């Protein structure tokens, strides 16, 4: 606030009569940590001997992941009847899980791309882990539509390759748009993640003491030298990838919502779906970022780099997007009533009071009510409570996709064709196992790659400013 006390001739007269409030920016890195401290802190995670907790968690994650692979093996060898799909519900847990996992991924891209364009410097501390989360969540998501096609050995029919009869994919289908959206999303997220990691891989390479470590990280770092001529191109490419990822991430969940919105099923055929799905995706994704980062912060003592300010910001984003999601639920009801369409009205009344009312109210309590606790500073500062609320949000967002997918199909136009859907044990095991699959990938990332973007974190410290005194 140097200007407020400046006695230059252009100084507005009003400033003689009022005392402007001092609004200092919250420090991003606490305790005035230097560059070398940041390097040591982040590299130590990769360089230290494998900790016991990691081995135990990794073994548990591998065990849980086996549920997915056994489940999928059983499905392929038996047939899709092994899942709970039957008329009228032809889209069951597979689609629910797919949308759930893709949604989780969106927070990573929001942090790496949209917050980069908005110059939110606090994003640097959580950026790398959130991007990794994106990629691994998309890996989990991709399994479901792939196996959901039934005869998985024909999954290549989805790609623009002619089949035995010379027939190509049909591009009027939203499911085909999904193939392009999700595969592009996965590819671009991976490129962005890897490119951003190159300077940090260079740092680990330069500190390597064993030959295999040197060889491994040298290969990944591509011979990065950190010259400003390289940084100039790197920063431009980084900015452009952020600019490309922003419309991409918005388009991906928009297209996922088209899977529903383009059909004529009451409860699905609504124009609110794209923004509503994107808000929900960011909501669930941030909850997952906090679910992952809070334990890692405690284990690796990253309190100076991921401080209360970061946690506050993430909680506030969860609060904002959770409220948007709640508003969307209300809007859906209003539009259904206003539409004058009796099927549409029924679909929504049925959601709240029909045979799946239990799922609907779990969704509302987890997604609309629990995040409202984040209005209170005391709640945001209690990290165990934040972690538990985030788990509730994750549960709620899974149920949101369940409510949308199942209630609309189970009770559509003709009461004679109504039904009740229940998952089988194969459904449940396959989904349960994806958490193990995700954890396996994430733990490997934590152990072998830089968890925090060192270069970016150094860049936002006060001593990185060339004009500081």
């Amino acid at each position: 606030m140097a200007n407020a006390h400046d006695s230059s001739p252009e100084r507005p007269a009003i400033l003689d009569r009022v005392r402007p409030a001092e609004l200092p920016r919250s420090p991003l890195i606490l305790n005035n940590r230097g560059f070398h401290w940041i390097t040591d802190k982040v590299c130590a995670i990769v360089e230290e001997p494998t900790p016991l907790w990691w081995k135990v968690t990794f073994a548990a994650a591998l065990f849980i992941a086996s549920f997915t692979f056994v489940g999928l093996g059983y499905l392929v060898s038996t047939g899709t009847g092994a899942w709970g799909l039957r008329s009228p519900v032809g889209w069951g847990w597979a689609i629910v899980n797919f949308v759930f996992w893709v949604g989780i991924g969106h927070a990573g891209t929001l942090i790496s791309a949209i917050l980069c364009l908005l110059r939110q410097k606090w994003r640097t501390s959580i950026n790398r882990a959130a991007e990794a989360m994106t990629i691994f969540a998309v890996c989990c998501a991709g399994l479901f539509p792939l196996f959901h096609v039934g005869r998985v050995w024909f999954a290549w029919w989805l790609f623009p390759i002619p089949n035995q009869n010379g027939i190509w994919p049909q591009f009027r289908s939203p499911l085909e748009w999904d193939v392009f959206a999700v595969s592009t999303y996965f590819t671009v997220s991976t490129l962005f993640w890897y490119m951003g990691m190159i300077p940090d891989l260079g740092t680990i390479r330069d500190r390597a003491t064993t030959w295999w470590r040197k060889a491994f990280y040298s290969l990944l770092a591509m011979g990065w030298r950190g010259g400003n001529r390289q940084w100039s191109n790197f920063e431009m490419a980084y900015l452009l990838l952020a600019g490309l990822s922003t419309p991409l991430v918005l388009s991906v969940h928009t297209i996922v919502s088209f899977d529903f919105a383009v059909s004529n099923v009451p409860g699905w055929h609504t124009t609110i779906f794209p923004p509503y799905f994107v808000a929900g995706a960011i909501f669930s994704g941030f909850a997952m970022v906090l679910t992952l980062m809070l334990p890692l912060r405690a284990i690796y003592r990253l309190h100076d780099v991921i401080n209360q300010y970061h946690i506050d910001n993430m909680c506030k984003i969860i609060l904002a997007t959770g409220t948007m999601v709640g508003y969307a639920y209300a809007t859906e009801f209003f539009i259904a009533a206003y539409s004058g369409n009796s099927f549409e009205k029924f679909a929504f009344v049925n959601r709240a009071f029909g045979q799946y009312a239990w799922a609907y109210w779990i969704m509302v309590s987890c997604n609309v009510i629990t995040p409202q606790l984040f209005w209170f500073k005391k709640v945001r500062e209690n990290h165990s409570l934040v972690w538990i609320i985030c788990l509730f949000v994750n549960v709620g967002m899974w149920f949101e996709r369940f409510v949308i997918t199942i209630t609309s199909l189970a009770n559509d136009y003709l009461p004679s064709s109504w039904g009740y859907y229940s998952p089988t044990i194969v459904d449940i095991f396959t989904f349960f196992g994806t958490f193990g699959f995700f954890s396996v990938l994430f733990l490997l990332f934590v152990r072998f790659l830089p968890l925090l973007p060192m270069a970016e974190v150094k860049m936002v410290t006060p001593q990185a400013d060339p004009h500081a005194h």
Partner: protein
Amino acid sequence: MNERNERIHGVACTFRQVSDVFHAAEQVRDAGWKNWDVHTPFPIHGMDQAMGLPRSPVPRLTLLGGITGFITGCLLTWYMNSYDYPLIVGGKPYWSVIFPFPVIYECTILFAAFGTFFGQFIFNRLPHHHHPLFDLPQFSRISDDTFMIVLEARDPQFHLDESRNFLLSLGGQEITVIRD
């Protein structure tokens, strides 16, 4: 290049403070050097101007990629659904830009991202695993907390002793000759 410089890559000197290396870079720029670089552990804000670097050429490849992707998306959907195996869906035209727009949109972004990603590698001349700088003992600190200015021998202004003295006058700490 004189005979003495034949096997010399350049001269390097290190700095400990961001402001020191920043002001030193401004002086090297003002002295008219062309083949030189500032090695830093993170991008320093305003260093491009301090070094007098032109705008990065990466966006050209992004644009090229984007245009290629858009055309690829259009051709892909047109060829598959309208030319090679025309599909009648709902009595609509075989091809328009509207119905496959999500596909075209994603192709545009995908190819633009490839252009950007590979553009960064092409313009930075990476991968580049053998470089004289890697043999320098203090180089390993450049990716940690130290800054380094390198004046290369291929610059017409380069003269071993004069360049060393020039770097000393800028406030550099360790002056080292880099051999090829």
